[in-house]
């Protein structure tokens, strides 16, 4: 069966700095993949290339078989994203933002879909509020509602729960988990919260200096590398990748 996301030998260089160094990986249906790594590891650069807002220097990105370099619009129509650094315009209301982005993503039965999402993300009370006056947690939920508008086959989430309280974060994780499992979508998830990653991800990829150093099940990977927790493994990868014999 065709993979939701298939990345081959992806490379990006800024000036003389290699941000992403020929990485290859896939995301399957029903799968949540964690993209982990320290700041500057290349996670956001990778996500930006998948979103089509950054052109790779080499390599290919296929979304359900569609090469985004050749068929960008239909490929991107199958994705959506939420990122803590990309809030929706604060000068539009929640429903206005969802309407505009619903049209951009070609969502059918848009008014009904907006109602569903406002309910799902507990945003009904903020329907006519400008996004700029919402708390950071509420804005994050609006961003997630936007990310789910088009029932994306590939969902890209860059630290999606960073500004949520623990209870809301857990609900959001459950929502996205259920979505991936029921809708058969793939999710690429970055986070610095290792508890969260262990809880939700089926597989993790550890990035450092633009390369994938480790890959595996977040529940078993620490023990495989002599660490007690995923956080310990993360710190080891970030600080001393050579000690793991993977750099």
């Amino acid at each position, binding site marked *: 069966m065709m993979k939701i996301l298939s990345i081959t030998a992806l490379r990006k260089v800024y000036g003389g700095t290699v941000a992403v160094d020929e990485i290859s990986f896939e995301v399957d249906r029903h799968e949540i993949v964690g993209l982990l790594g320290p700041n500057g590891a290349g996670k956001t650069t990778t996500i930006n290339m998948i979103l089509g807002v950054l052109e790779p220097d080499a390599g290919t990105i296929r979304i359900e078989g569609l090469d985004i370099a050749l068929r960008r619009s239909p490929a*991107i129509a199958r994705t959506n994203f939420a990122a803590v650094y990309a809030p929706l315009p604060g000068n539009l209301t929640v429903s206005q933002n969802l309407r505009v982005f619903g049209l951009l993503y070609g969502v059918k039965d848009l008014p009904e879909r907006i109602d569903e999402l406002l309910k799902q993300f507990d945003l009904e009370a903020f329907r006519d509020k400008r996004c700029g006056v919402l708390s950071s947690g509420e804005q994050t939920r609006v961003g997630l509602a936007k990310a789910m508008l088009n029932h994306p086959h590939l969902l890209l989430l860059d630290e999606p729960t960073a500004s949520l309280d623990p209870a809301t974060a857990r609900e959001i994780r459950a929502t996205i988990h259920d979505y991936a499992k029921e809708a058969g979508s793939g999710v690429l998830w970055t986070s610095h919260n290792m508890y969260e990653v262990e809880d939700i991800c089926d597989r993790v990829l550890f990035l450092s200096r633009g390369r994938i150093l480790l890959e595996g099940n977040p529940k078993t990977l620490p023990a495989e590398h002599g660490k007690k927790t995923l956080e310990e493994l993360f710190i080891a990868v970030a600080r001393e990748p050579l000690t793991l014999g993977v750099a």
Partner: protein
Amino acid sequence: MSLRRTFAIVLRQVYLIRGSFSRVFPLFAWVAIDIVLWGFLTHYLNTVASPGFNFVPALLGAVLLWDFFIRIMQGVTMAFFEDVWSRNFLNIFATPLLISEYVGGLVLSSIFSSLIGVAVMLVIAVACFKLSLLIYGAMAIPFLLVLFLFGISLGVFGSALVLRFGPASEWFIWPIPALISPFAGVLYPVSTLPEWMRHISRILPPSYVFEGLRAVISGGTVSGVALAWSGCLAGGYILLAYWYFTRVYRHALRTGLIARYSAESLS
């Protein structure tokens, strides 16, 4: 090309204008002041100048057309600046939206927002200063069309400049009409200008429009060839501006500018 996606860009602008008096006010306030100012000036000139010549269609009509051009240009750039000010590029360009749809949306937004200013200008000019557009006859249509096309081309070009050089460069965009106006012969014949300025006038579509406008008022004939040439020039500028916008966009995709666009990310 998807009309729905183009409509989304227009709808965003409609929402913004509808919900904000500070966005509605500039659409008509400055052009209204311009028309009032020039309306009284032309009336005064009519009283002191030799009888027989009516300054209202010559000067006030020219100012009205020039303001129409400015509104069209700024309609495009304002719609683009909304994405700059709300740092919305990542959200917008991570959708299936094509550049042609985005630019098309900016142009339609400009038509929508310009209509407000044009309507106010016409009401004041006609009701208060007895400007009759009928005096221009059918030539009013090509005059408006050329100015519209040139306004669109400068709006798209200005947006591309800001995309390329960052938000701070928007201050280079606002004075563009003022920089062009001396060469365009809005208020005086191009023959008044020194030779080197006339060379520049020849490549500016509005100069043909205002020469034509004066010819109509003085009872002369408008050169159809000159007007057609100005239309071709304006159409050519639109193609050039669109080419430049797509080139800047491709550059922004290669450098990561779209994803990191902010005042701090550019010099």
